């Protein structure tokens, strides 16, 4: 099963973090990613630019609109994601718990729907 681990954190807090702590966090994250890649769990991971760089796109009545900023203002912002392969939800939770980001923010674990399989099942 594939699971998407979405990391949410308070950008203001992260921005206020001393540089050496940020470096340590990145360092540890890279090491964790290497481990997850070696064990075959990691499919894809990316960190996102700060939320201020967001553009929100909508198409209504055939007209495209693009606005600055995120769809909703929240205390914690989406900062990155890990797409992982795990045997089941508890394995995905164990992996999410190992992400250094889980200590500074929160990780949302969402199962990925296999559209191909769901489609052919119909």
């Amino acid at each position, binding site marked *: 099963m594939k699971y998407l681990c979405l990391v949410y954190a308070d950008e203001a807090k992260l921005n206020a973090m001393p540089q050496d702590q940020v470096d340590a966090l990145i360092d540890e994250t890279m*090491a964790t990613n290497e481990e997850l890649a070696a064990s075959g769990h990691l499919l894809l991971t990316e960190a996102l630019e700060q939320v201020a760089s967001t553009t929100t796109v909508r198409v209504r009545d055939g007209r495209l609109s693009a606005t600055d900023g995120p769809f909703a203002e929240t205390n914690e912002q989406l900062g990155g994601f890990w797409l992982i392969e795990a045997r*089941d*939800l508890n*394995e995905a939770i164990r992996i999410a718990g190992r992400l250094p980001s889980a200590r500074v923010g929160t990780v949302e674990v969402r199962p990925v729907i296999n559209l191909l399989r769901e489609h052919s099942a119909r």
Partner: protein
Amino acid sequence: MTHPAHHPELRERLEGLYRLESRRVLATLIRLLGDFDLAEEALQDAFAAAIEQWPRDGVPANPRAWLVSTGRFKAIDRLRRRARFDAMLGQLAARLDDQAPDPAELDEELLADDRLRLIFTCCHPALPPDAQVAMTLREVCGLTTEEIARAFLTAPPTVAQRIVRAKARIRDARIPYEVPSPAELPDRLEPVLRVVYLIFTEGYAPAAGDAVVRADLADEAIRLGRLLVDLLPEPEPEALGLLALLLLQNARRAARATAEGDLVLLPDQDRDRWDRDQIAEAAELLRRAGSSGRVGPYTLQAAIAAAHAEAPTAEATDWDRIVRLYDRLARADPSPVVELNQAVAVAMRDGPAAGLARIDAILARGQLGTYPLAHAARADLLRRLGRTGDARAAYQRALALTGHEPQRRFLQRRLRDLDRPVGGDGQP
């Protein structure tokens, strides 16, 4: 890296090995590493290493021992690498490395003990019952969180949380990873047997949903029952009795539902479709349990099921023997459900009025009021007494209480048939 996809035979062998060995390897890794999550990681690492190395180096002579020692080594290696970020992990790695297991520690007997340790830990009385069930199915049987959720009609995050909390509890309360001493065994075995029975019941008679039988859960429970009988140092009579009970009920599986998924009650079942091998195996287990002189509730329930299984026809059922077994069961394990079944047996031996009086007495005490089978059994007795109006009301009551689709259809059929005269009765 050589991908196993290029070696279809090896991949098949590895998948087979995973199904067969992963739970044993996990059980041992938990002992060696002292932590569920660390052991689970090590298990995955060991299989990942097998996928990489076996195509190149060949399959080791003892794959299980190879997986255990590779998993253990990988776990220590991982902890060392993580020690850069958390010094505590370095100490843990050093400690684990010092406790390197003697190769003799991987002998068969100790590995068998590890599986028992795992079962007793998953069913530890400090864990809530639903967590015991989830832990047993995931850690001992190897079901995924999603499969457990589907079987119990629960959302996967709910099951996942139970497992996460149970593991935290085991860690925080320092629940030891051990097989209870002979003195503690009877007490500690009780929740284990209950978990196995619960898994079977959910498979055999789901409380809700659209299936008469969820075969996979019933099979898992029988596998667990066999494991206990095989692994326990002394043949524990109630473990024998429970396995006998599961086999006797399971022997009727094919006859319990029509091709359309409708329930068929015991007296109406085609006895030729009962599995005689399972019935014979259960009889042997019952003989062993009975010879111990300690006869518990599971053995008594199995003896009742055996009395049904041995009757060549429904009419030939020895109801007197069954009523007497229920008397003993009601003393060994008093419960309103046992009393209800006893009442049905009394009705078969002494007539519907005697059974009805007993059911009414249970309901008058305020027990089983929301239990659909109590009202269904009452309805059947009322119908046999010719009290059609009361029977209709009782069937409707049962119908309103059940969430199980085949049971609903059965009750609706009974309601429709009320005006027609019908013969004997029994339990589902």
